[in-house]
C-alpha cells in the first residue's frame, strides 16, 4: 500500500501530481524556494482546468523536514535534478523514487545519491502554472512508468494504479525504454525546432506538402532519432512522427518548455534531451547531422543570453 507520497519540485508537473495525489494519499512537497513552501502551507494547492481541486499539502524547502514516505516523485527540471537528488541523500529510507524528467539519464543521476528502488517515468500531461499555488491542468495525456534496474514490476503497477485513482492517467510497462526513446526523439525534435523558430507545436510541424514545409524537416530529424534508437538496441515504441501528427491535430497548441525557456532567457533542458540523443548517436556510430545541427543551434541560442 502506498499511503504517503513526497513530490520533489513543485513546477507545473510536480504541482499536478501533488494536487491530485493529495486526494488519495498524504502528500508532502519539497520546494526550492521557502516562500513557495510557505504559500502552499498557507493556501493549499488549487488545480483548475480539467480537474477542479483544492488540496491541502505539507510543504517545506528544507529536505531535513521531510517525513519518510512510500513514494517520492522527483518532478524538478532536468537542470535541477542533481541538486534535488543530492538533497535527498541519506533520507527517505523507505521510499521508492520515481523520475519524470525529460530526456535520458535521470535514473543514473539519482542513483549516484542513494540506493532507493527506482522507477522510470515519462509524462505527457501538461499544464499552465498561474502562481505558486494555482496550476491549470491542460492536457490529460498519460504518465508512463516502469521499473529501473531490479525494482519490481508490481511496484510500478501499484504506483500507476495510485495515480489513476487520483484522477490522472497512467500506465505501467515492464520495460519503459522504448517509450522513453519515443518521447526523447519527439522532445528533441519538437522542443528544439520550437525554441529556434518561436513557433508553438502547431500545424507547421506536420506540413509536408510544400517544398520547404517544416514537417519535412521534422520528419527527417525524427528519422535520424529512430536510427539512433535502433542502433542503441531500443527500437522506439510509439512512432514519434505519429505522436507529432496526433499532437498537432488536437486543436489546442502546446508551447514546448524549451520555447518558453528561451523566450525567458532561462537555461533549457537541451543537454538532457538533444545532448543525450547526440551523445547516443556518437556512442553508436550513427551519423545524425540534422540532430547535431539542432543541438548546436539551441546551445548557441542559450549562449546568446549573455
Amino acid at each position, binding site marked *: 500500500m502506498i499511503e504517503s507520497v513526497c513530490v520533489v519540485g513543485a513546477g507545473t508537473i510536480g504541482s499536478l501530481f501533488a494536487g491530485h495525489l493529495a486526494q488519495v494519499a498524504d502528500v508532502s512537497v519539497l520546494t526550492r524556494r521557502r516562500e513557495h513552501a510557505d504559500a502552499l502551507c498557507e493556501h493549499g494547492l488549487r488545480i483548475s482546468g480539467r480537474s477542479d481541486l483544492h488540496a491541502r499539502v505539507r510543504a517545506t524547502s528544507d529536505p531535513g523536514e521531510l517525513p519518510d514516505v512510500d513514494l517520492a516523485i522527483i518532478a524538478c527540471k532536468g537542470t535541477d535534478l542533481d541538486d534535488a537528488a543530492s538533497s535527498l541523500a541519506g533520507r527517505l529510507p523507505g521510499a521508492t523514487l520515481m523520475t519524470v524528467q525529460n530526456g535520458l539519464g535521470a535514473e543514473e543521476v539519482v542513483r549516484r545519491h542513494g540506493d532507493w528502488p527506482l522507477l522510470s517515468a515519462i509524462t505527457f500531461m501538461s499544464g499552465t502554472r498561474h502562481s505558486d499555488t494555482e496550476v491549470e491542468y491542460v492536457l490529460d495525456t498519460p504518465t508512463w512508468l516502469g521499473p529501473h534496474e531490479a525494482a519490481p514490476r508490481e511496484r510500478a503497477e501499484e504506483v500507476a494504479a495510485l495515480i489513476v485513482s487520483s484522477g490522472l492517467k497512467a500506465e505501467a510497462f515492464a520495460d519503459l525504454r522504448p517509450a522513453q526513446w519515443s518521447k526523447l526523439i519527439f522532445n528533441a525534435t519538437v522542443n528544439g525546432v520550437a525554441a529556434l*523558430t*518561436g513557433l508553438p507545436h502547431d500545424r*507547421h510541424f506536420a506540413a509536408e506538402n510544400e517544398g520547404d*514545409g*517544416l514537417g519535412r524537416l521534422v520528419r527527417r530529424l525524427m528519422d535520424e532519432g529512430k536510427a539512433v534508437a535502433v542502433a542503441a538496441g531500443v527500437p522506439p515504441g510509439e512512432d514519434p512522427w505519429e505522436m507529432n501528427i496526433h499532437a498537432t491535430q488536437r486543436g489546442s497548441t502546446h508551447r514546448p518548455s524549451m520555447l518558453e525557456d528561451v523566450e525567458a532567457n532561462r537555461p533549457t533542458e537541451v543537454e538532457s534531451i538533444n545532448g543525450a540523443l547526440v551523445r547516443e548517436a556518437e556512442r553508436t556510430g550513427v551519423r545524425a547531422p540534422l540532430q547535431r*545541427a539542432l543541438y*548546436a543551434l539551441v546551445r*548557441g541560442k542559450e*549562449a*546568446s543570453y549573455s
Partner: protein
Amino acid sequence: MGCGAVGSLFAANLAQLEDVEVWAYDLSQPHVDAINAYGLRLTGAGEVAAHVRATTDPAALPTCDFGIVATKAMHTESAVTVSAPALASAAVASVQNGVGNEEVIAHHVTRVIRGTTFPAGKILEPGVVQWDVKGDTTLGPFEPSPAHIGEIERLADACTRSGMPTAAVADARPAQWRKVIFNAATNPVGALTGLTHGRVCERPDLRALVSALVGEGKAVATAQGITLDADPEELIDHAAKPEVAYDHKASMLQDVEARRETEIDFLNGGIGRFGRELGVPTPLNDAVTQLVKALEDSWH
C-alpha cells in the same frame, strides 16, 4: 531599381559622372521625396552629394541604357515587372544577394548581367545613406540570356570612374558563389541563435555546422563547373577576428530582430534549388531554410 543602401551607393556615385544620368525607382515615398528635394547624400567611407531623380512611379522612368537591380532578392520580380518598359532596350545587372536573381530578371528583359558587390551601408534617414564599407563589384554575362561584353565593360568602367571599383569578367559565377556560400553559411546561424559572427565561430559545434553548410555549397558550385575565386572558410575565419567583424550581426539576424522578411529563399534556399536541379544533396541548407522560414511564420 531599389534605392536602399546598396542601390544608393551606385546611384549617388554614378550621378557624379557628367556622361551619366541616374534615375532611382523605390517604393519609399519619404526617401524618394527627400532625394528629389535635397539630393542623395552618402556619408562615412565616402562623402557624396548627388543629384539623382527619384520616383515611386515606374511609368515616370525614361528609357534607360542600363538597369541596376538592388532590391532585396524577394522583391526582384515585382520591381522588374513594373519597370520593364523603361528597361526594354537596357542591359540589366543584378547586384543583389544570393543566387537566382538573374533568372528572375531574365523573365522580363533579354540582356542580363550577373553581378556581385561587396560595398555595404545603411539608410540613416530619407535621402541620407551611411557608407559602411567600400568593396569591389564583379560584373559578367548571365549566360542563358547575356548582355554584350562591350556594354558590360561600359557599365564597369562607369562604376569604376565613379568610385565603385568594378571588374567586367567573362565568368562572374565564382565571385557570386563565393559570396552566396559565405552568406548562406553564416547568416542563418546568426539569425537562429542571435550570436554575432565572432561568437558563432568560436563555438566548435556551430563552426562545424558553418563548415558543413560551406561544404554543401561548394559541392553545388563544383557540380556547375565553377572554381571559386577564394575559399569561403578562410574568409569566414578572417571575418571572425576581433579587428575585422567579430561583433558583426549578420544582416539576416538584423532582419529577424526587426521582424523583416529575410533573403533565405535566395541564400540557402537558392543553394538547395540549384542542388536539386544538379542532383547534389543539400540537407543542412534545406534544414536551415525550413527553420528560418518557420521563424518568419511565427510572426504572423
